[in-house]
């Protein structure tokens, strides 16, 4: 019964979304508050209906109702509860319901919570959100309904792919999807403003919290996904430039560029057309990601089972949404006001350079991702790009933007003193160079580019701290005054500082880990030793181990350094009888910020004695790779708390005026 109720609720949500779009548009045209109010009510109703459908699906999964096809294909009674719940979004159809839940949820938040928005802009945004909701709900209802019944229910389900049965994967999609779909609000606000023909500082201020929230969620989602791939796939790496990884990375890049250009629009009224373009681009990339992951046009480690027909439908939605958005942009953008002027050396210019580099980098990722499709269409032979392509294109472009990053915040708006800014950064530059030189000298083999990467990360951290110290007048005033000034800094400034430091931490970790990762593998019997850099690994025992829905062989590997035991790793090989699939579970031992990463291979027999191929990596500084992005997301959240406090409040007199200042 619950499944039928859920199906009904999905259809109801589709109808309500259509009503939301029609009522809001009509209300906007007639200027009728009653109609737009009804549209807002429909938006809330659509969200409640999708929430009902989602709950129904979750009940079906938790109670293992195998008469529902989706549950029968993806769940199993012996599966732990967490993975029964995660099974809801661990498959294509269920993940679409999660997508729709987030989409209608954000729509409801604008409809009910966007009181600060002008009525006409809000009506447009709610309508746009309704159209998006209707398209994705129609797709879910007609092409991928997870609540359909099967005629002869099986006694037992086929269970979830063992690779997906992992706590990090269980929580990663909700973050990622909220981040993807959060961009829809940014898109809707852009559409709404284009229809009204008014893009100004106030609009940028409404967009920024949404962009910040989606960006933070996306950052967390990508980091969790990367961490999952790192320790679940047993390959020792954390990023493979796989199409699906790129699909989540491109909206992130667009959102990062958007956050920076929206600052210019907000403070100076300039770059408004470009900001709108990025707002449209961010959600287009999100939809492109949905299409790439679900259509199977590109082969990936993470793909859902391939269904070209669904891919065409998603491509259709992408075409309609992006086509109408960019069409509207092409029509309206030339009439947008230019905004405040600025000198070639100014904070605006620094942010423009930031945007140029990030956009160029995003385009190289887009090209690299879509290249196999383009080439196949033109020549019918198959080819693709791996890591080396991105190392040559994306990495240098991003290195350039990071190199100028600490200078930007020290430049004044409109007209700045570059020499003065550089003067305040010389300590940071010295520290960074010292860090790079130290790393280069200590580590064998000497790798200059990696040392440059570490220096770049140190430059970001030290430069950002220098800017903070400059704001607090450290050195000029007494320590008490400095503390008082730090306490008075707006949350937004703290958010920026955290995010930039997080970037620096990530860059240091990524450069160091990639260059000086130590790898060793050996076929080991019990009691054998393996040397991994400065560590000694010994395989002490291998024994059986029973999990809730798997049987495993688990090894005890003692890691020692100079005779001292550092830690004991327990890598395992799990066998899932339902899927008849084996899965390696790596062991990660933590000496500080580095990981010792151990993978137990298949059992082999070497003249009667059991042996295992043991692979081990000493991933040095690898913790920084995941810690950095979390710091960035924290920065986003801190900045967001500032926005919320100031939402709708009159500006303080000490703040720069919001309206674009007249040209000098």
């Amino acid at each position, binding site marked *: 019964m619950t499944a039928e109720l859920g199906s009904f609720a999905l259809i109801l949500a589709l109808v309500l979304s259509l009503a939301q779009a029609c009522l809001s548009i009509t209300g906007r045209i007639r200027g009728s508050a009653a109609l737009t109010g009804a549209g807002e009510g429909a938006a809330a109703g659509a969200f409640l209906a999708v929430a009902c459908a989602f709950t129904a699906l979750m009940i079906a999964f938790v109670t293992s109702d195998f008469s529902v096809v989706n549950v029968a294909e993806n769940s199993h009674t012996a599966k732990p509860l967490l993975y029964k719940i995660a099974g809801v979004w661990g498959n294509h159809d269920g993940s679409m319901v999660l997508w729709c839940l987030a989409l209608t949820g954000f729509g409801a938040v604008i409809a009910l919570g966007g009181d600060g928005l002008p009525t006409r802009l809000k009506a447009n945004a709610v309508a746009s959100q309704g159209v998006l909701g209707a398209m994705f709900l129609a797709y879910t209802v007609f092409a991928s309904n997870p609540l359909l019944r099967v005629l002869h229910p099986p006694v037992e389900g086929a269970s979830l792919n063992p690779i997906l049965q992992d706590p990090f994967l269980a929580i990663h999609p909700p973050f990622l999807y909220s981040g993807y779909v959060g961009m829809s609000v940014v898109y809707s606000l852009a559409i709404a403003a284009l229809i009204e023909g008014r893009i100004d500082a106030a609009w940028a201020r409404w967009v920024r919290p949404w962009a910040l929230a989606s960006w933070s969620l996306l950052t967390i989602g990508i980091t969790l996904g990367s961490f999952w791939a790192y320790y679940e796939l047993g390959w020792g790496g954390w990023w493979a430039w796989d199409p699906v990884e790129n699909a989540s990375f491109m909206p992130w890049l667009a959102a990062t560029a958007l956050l920076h250009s929206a600052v210019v629009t907000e403070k100076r009224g300039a770059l408004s057309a470009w900001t709108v373009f990025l707002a449209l681009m961010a959600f287009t990339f999100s939809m492109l990601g949905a299409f790439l992951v679900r259509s199977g046009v590109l082969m990936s480690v993470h793909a859902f089972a391939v269904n070209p027909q669904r891919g065409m439908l998603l491509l259709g939605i992408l075409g309609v949404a992006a086509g109408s958005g960019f069409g509207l942009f092409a029509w309206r953008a030339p009439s947008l006001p230019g905004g405040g002027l600025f000198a070639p050396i100014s904070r605006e210019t620094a942010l423009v350079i930031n945007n140029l580099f990030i956009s160029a980098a995003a385009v190289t990722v887009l090209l690299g991702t879509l290249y196999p499709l383009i080439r196949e269409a033109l020549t019918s032979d198959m080819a693709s790009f791996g890591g*080396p392509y991105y190392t040559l294109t994306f990495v*240098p472009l991003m290195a350039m933007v990071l190199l100028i990053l600490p200078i930007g915040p020290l430049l004044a708006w409109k007209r700045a003193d570059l020499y003065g800014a550089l003067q305040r950064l010389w300590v940071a530059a010295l520290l960074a160079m010292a860090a790079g030189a130290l790393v280069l000298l200590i580590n064998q083999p000497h790798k200059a580019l990696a040392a440059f990467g570490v220096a770049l990360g140190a430059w970001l951290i030290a430069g950002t701290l220098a800017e903070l110290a400059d704001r607090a007048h450290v050195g000029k005033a007494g320590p008490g005054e400095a503390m008082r000034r730090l306490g008075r800094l707006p949350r937004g400034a703290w958010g920026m500082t955290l995010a930039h430091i997080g970037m620096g931490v990530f860059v240091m970790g990524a450069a160091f880990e990639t260059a000086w990762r130590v790898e060793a593998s050996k076929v080991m019997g019990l009691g054998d030793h393996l040397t991994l850099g400065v560590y000694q690994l010994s395989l002490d025992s291998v024994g059986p181990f029973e999990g809730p829905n798997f049987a495993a062989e688990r090894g005890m590997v003692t890691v020692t350094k100079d005779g001292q035991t550092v830690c004991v790793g327990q890598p395992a090989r799990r066998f899932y009888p339902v899927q008849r699939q084996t899965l390696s579970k790596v062991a990660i031992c933590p000496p500080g910020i580095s990981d010792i990463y151990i993978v137990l291979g298949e059992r082999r027999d070497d003249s009667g004695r059991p042996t295992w191929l043991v692979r081990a990596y000493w991933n040095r500084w690898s913790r920084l790779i995941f810690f950095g992005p979390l710091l960035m997301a924290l920065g986003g959240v801190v900045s967001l708390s500032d926005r919320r406090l100031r939402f709708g409040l009159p500006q303080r007199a000490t703040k720069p005026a919001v309206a674009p200042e007249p040209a000098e």
Partner: protein
Amino acid sequence: MTLLPKSRKARRRLAMVALAAPILGAAVGLTLYAMRNTVSLFYSPAEAHAAHVRPGLTFQLGGLVAQGSVVKRPDGTVDFVIMDRAARDSVVYHGDLPDLFREGQGVVTKGAYRPDGVFEASEVLAKHDEKYMPREVTKALKASGEWRGDEQQAARAAAAGS
């Protein structure tokens, strides 16, 4: 100074173009260079033979893992045969095979031919969905007539699993 446009707006535009041009130029240059030098081609054994891939050139070789061809040696080396209907290639790989590697299923490997014609794989990629069939392999098999349709494929996967 006389060459610069008079209006402030036009000057700003010129400055923007002067700023954007080198950045975009560098991006395009890097991309073109990287595209020429890092592209990784995909061949099935028959296609690789037809293209006369020279030894030492890194590419991706994909096809079906021949039944009964997998030999795991005590030193950690694995030998197997990748086949399509028209050709077979012996593959040597040193390392642990991905969890999804199975005989009779599709596989994609990355590596190069040795002078003796054996393909030395540096990577065996686990690019599979739950049907254990990489898309490139599906397409190559369809091209060579080896493809037996999705349903038979699924039945075979089920048979191989049980």
